[in-house]
């Protein structure tokens, strides 16, 4: 049983002897190399937190955002190759616009997740294209409540209450499982998400990062927006403080 491809990994149109498509698995590795995305679904909204690694001090603040708006009511956060992700965002926007034009209303999150996952899956079938090297999280809030779906490079998609993708996903998942998210409001979750992103950020390997926070829910009346500056500042302050507290506990 070969676990490195050795010859079966040259295109997405080949199975390995144990029935795996290695190109898709390699695409998933590309996701694991990128900054962490943490997303939590509370009782009245969803908060995204993205650890955007800043590779050069010369970048303008706020450039190369990893959270996209799809229509007015859906947010899309990505982990992985940003160029591939921009393509997915464009497709998602087209699907949402077509839905609105055909059916006269905003596209439900589950429907958009289904369409985007079918699109990403199509790129895992042929030899002349490669799979997308990114995972996306889609969220929205409507009269049925908050919805969140994650789509992987294989095209598989599921609904989640909380998820983490990217570098620090294992550590972040452990933190998320401790939170009682189903009872928390989006305002409370902003602080939790910021705290988790700061906790999983590896100071040694990646120096600078920007935290992108966005939310959609009852407080924003169903519109997907970036978290207002004051709330974000407060959340980051609390996150840094809780990091210091836990550091000083370790020193003792």
């Amino acid at each position, binding site marked *: 049983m070969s676990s490195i491809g050795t010859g079966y990994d040259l295109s997405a149109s080949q199975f390995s002897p144990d029935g795996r498509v290695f190109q898709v698995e390699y695409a998933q590795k590309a996701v694991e190399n990128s900054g962490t995305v943490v997303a939590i679904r509370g009782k009245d909204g969803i908060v995204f937190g993205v650890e955007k690694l800043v590779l050069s001090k010369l970048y303008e603040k706020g450039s190369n955002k990893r959270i996209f708006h799809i229509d007015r009511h859906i947010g899309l956060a990505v982990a992985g190759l940003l160029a591939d992700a921009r393509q997915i965002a464009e497709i998602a926007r087209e699907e949402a616009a077509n839905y609105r034009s055909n059916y006269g209303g905003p596209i439900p999150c*589950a429907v958009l997740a289904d369409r985007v996952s079918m699109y990403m899956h199509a790129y895992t079938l042929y030899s002349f294209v490669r799979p997308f090297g990114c995972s996306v999280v889609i969220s929205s809030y409507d009269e049925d409540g908050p919805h969140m779906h994650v789509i992987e490079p294989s095209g598989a998609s599921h609904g989640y209450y909380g998820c983490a993708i990217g570098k620090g996903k294992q550590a972040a998942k452990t933190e998320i499982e401790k939170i009682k998210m189903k009872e928390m409001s989006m305002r409370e979750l902003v602080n939790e998400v910021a705290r988790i992103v700061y906790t999983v950020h590896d100071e040694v390997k990646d120096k600078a990062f920007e935290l992108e926070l966005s939310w959609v829910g009852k407080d924003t009346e169903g519109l997907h927006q970036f978290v207002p500056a004051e709330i974000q500042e407060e959340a980051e302050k609390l996150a840094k403080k809780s990091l210091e507290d836990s550091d000083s506990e370790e020193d003792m």
Partner: protein
Amino acid sequence: MSVGNSAGFDRHITIFSPEGRLYQVEYAFNACKQAGLTSVAVRGKDSAVVVIQKKVPDKLLDPSTVTNLFYITANIGCVMTGMSADSRYQVKRARSEAAFWKYRYGHEIPVDVLCRRIADISQVYTQSAGMRPLGCIMTLIGYDDKMGPMVFKTDPAGYFCGFRAVACGAKHLEGGNFLEKCFKKKKDYTFNETIELAIHCLSCILSADLRANELEVGIVTQENPKFRTLTEAEIDNHLASLAERD
């Protein structure tokens, strides 16, 4: 039987090996077992049932979005065993084919015709170089007013067949043996017996007492030919009467 020199021949779908095998198609069958799930389908006297395990591997997953049972039309349902994304693609294609048939011919597509169509599409993937076969097995159930309940299965090779009972996935061999033994003793199963046989088969081959939230059951019957999935409460009832029998 020689293991076969697979070097060089199994990379390309259009090339036969010296023994006349298509290795890529065989590897696609292995992909169907990757998810580790097994499904069982049984055709009774007046009903047809599909049962599959429900595994929710992550606590953070929303369990209502995890399913392997899909409806194709109101009267035809299926269980998909294998790679999740490939399954959804095949279901979408099946829905599209069924809808086109209704549009073109004015009546609902029969189960066997739909299965044949999906199988023919799967065969194309085994003969073209640029595409790979889909790593999933589709088991369709439906109630035909002339032929009665029907269970049809199609696999990555493009082969399809009608069954009295079939097991697919990781433990399909054990499942097949178990079902053969049961059908030797008794051929006609009522509605409740059909469901209980399917669930009993799954528990035996997995050597585990399955609970209602670890199972998904889809049924079609003579009284109600529409495909529907059982609720947890209904599954519990069947599990209880199964336990009483033992």
